[in-house]
């Protein structure tokens, strides 16, 4: 059995009296895509922020490549290889593709104390990386505000990978996208995993998660309902486990009732 790349053991997080997360455990290997499923309010956002070093867990431990770790800041998490792509993507629409790509991690050149931002190199890398995922950036100095939603998502993921992410945390990467753009993003995610990254895909859309995921963790009201391998669970069972499942069943029954009454 290969070693887990990253483990989150019994993570809990409290905000005052509110229990946002309780005893959440996740383990990932290289090349694995784990989908974290949960309805709104299940604690997904809190968990992401804990993974990314924004929040410190109140209980539990994070273990990366066998070493116990504490993230003091988002930068710490980044340095440890946790690349988080937030729903808002952390892209500034007014800034260029290049300046966004290297935001916070600009390549430098020149003598010590007079180091400058190496824009030429940055432009070249940004254009090259975007080209690899099939996005033709006509001009890397164009503002990100001019790109489509799928392109922006891919830019954000590509940025995280370029900066040495070993674990990719994706927050609702497909929620704002149309079918075509969502599949473009998911294809890219699978490709990234096949290159040896561990991916945590956070979503409430089982239909997007099921085709790409190797395992599934379901969150409900701050607690984990367990982690399941793909072969052990069906799409419908997953849907049922999320809080929305029962309600969707109820809705179906009610709709049938209405149809019967109407006919």
């Amino acid at each position: 059995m290969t070693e887990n790349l990253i483990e989150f053991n019994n993570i809990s997080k409290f905000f005052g009296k509110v229990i946002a997360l309780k005893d959440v455990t996740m383990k990932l290997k290289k090349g694995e895509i784990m989908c974290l499923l949960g309805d709104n309010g299940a604690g997904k956002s809190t968990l992401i922020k804990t993974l990314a070093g924004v929040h410190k867990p109140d209980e539990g431990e994070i273990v990366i490549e066998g070493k116990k770790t504490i993230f003091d800041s988002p930068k710490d998490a980044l340095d440890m290889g946790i690349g988080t792509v937030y729903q808002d993507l952390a892209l500034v629409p007014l800034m260029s593709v290049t300046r966004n790509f290297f935001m916070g991690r600009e390549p430098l050149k020149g003598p010590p104390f007079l180091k400058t931002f190496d824009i030429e190199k940055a432009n070249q890398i940004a254009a090259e990386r975007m080209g690899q995922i099939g996005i033709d950036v006509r001009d890397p100095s164009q503002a990100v505000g001019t790109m489509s939603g799928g392109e922006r998502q891919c830019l954000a993921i590509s940025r995280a990978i370029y900066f040495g992410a070993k674990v990719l945390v994706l927050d609702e990467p497909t929620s704002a996208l149309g079918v075509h753009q969502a599949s473009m993003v998911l294809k890219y995610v699978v490709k990234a995993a096949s290159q040896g990254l561990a991916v945590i895909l956070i979503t409430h859309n089982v239909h997007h998660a099921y085709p790409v995921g190797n395992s599934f963790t379901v969150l409900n009201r701050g607690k984990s309902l367990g982690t399941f391998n793909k072969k052990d669970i069906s799409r419908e069972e997953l849907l049922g486990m999320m809080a929305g499942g029962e309600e969707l069943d109820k809705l179906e029954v009610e709709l049938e009732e209405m149809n019967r009454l109407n006919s």
Partner: protein
Amino acid sequence: MSDKAKSIASKKTSGQDERLKEVSKLRLLLNRPELGAVGGAILVFIFFGIVAGDTGMFSAYGTLNFLDVSANLGIIAIAAAMLMIGGEFDLSIGSMIGFAGICIAIPAIYWGWPLWVSIIFAFAMAVLVGYFNGILVVRTGLPSFIVTLAMLFILRGATLAITRLITGRTQVPGLRVLIENDPIAWMFATDTFKWLFTWLGSMNLIALRTDGTPLATGIPPSVIWFIAATLFATWILMKTRYGNWIFASGGDKNGATNVGVPVGRVKISLFIGTAVAATIFATIQVLDAGSADTMRGNLKELEAIAAAVVGGCLLTGGYGSAIGAAFGALIFGTVSMGIFYTDVDTDWFKVFLGAMMLIAVVFNNYIRKRVTESK
């Protein structure tokens, strides 16, 4: 998507690449934040060239006069612009000017400190005030508008109260004699390129006094500081990592934080920047006048912000340029001095200032839409 692919394909096959490229270059120019201010400055110069071309406004003496006024405003406008790009305001710039003035004058005149120690003391106080502004804004999350408005009153009040307490009046004169042989003061008080003006005078190319010395004696220190500040700020914004952090902090605070930009530190350093710029302004003026006045710099914060806005800075942050702010300051300086050379009553200056700002804001808004929405 397929439509897009088709349109790209048609572009490639239609052989109109050259033309397309030219358009995109023009668009690139249109998208520069300083475009409005540069265009405005050219219009202003054309206007005064026609209206006041033969009045001496553009003589060496007249030119240095409006450059001096522009440069003084420019020094603080550039710092204000950088802070605005970083997403914050500083309304305490004007009060800081008055405060820095007495921080130089009182120790030098009343406590017997050497002038250079007093100047360093003033800059140290500026760093402290800027840090305090910054840490308050960053820690409390309150709008910088409110925090620095409070600082505007506190600093102005403290300046007045302390000065009257120590000196019994509101002005502190007598600094001029201390400038000579001071190891630092010359940086803020010396006209440069004097040889050039002497030479120009000897060639009868510029106006002379009755004693044969040129009327314009040299480039005033404010202009040198102004040019240096413009170059330095532009270098920082365009060429350094810190510059990228400034844009990121102002463009999207949360996004920037999430990718590891130390937004808090960036903002605090920018607040220190405006306070230090105000102190440079104050030092130059105090040494030039030979006295400190508690009301010095009154309302300068608004002029600085106006110049930054005319220069293309968005009020919401994340967009703008130092060169734009420099040209914004040049427009204000030129008009405020140039109006004396015309038949227009100087009372109209503020009307112009307001109108200019309105036009600039409307224009900038349009530019931002182009940048973020055009495809």
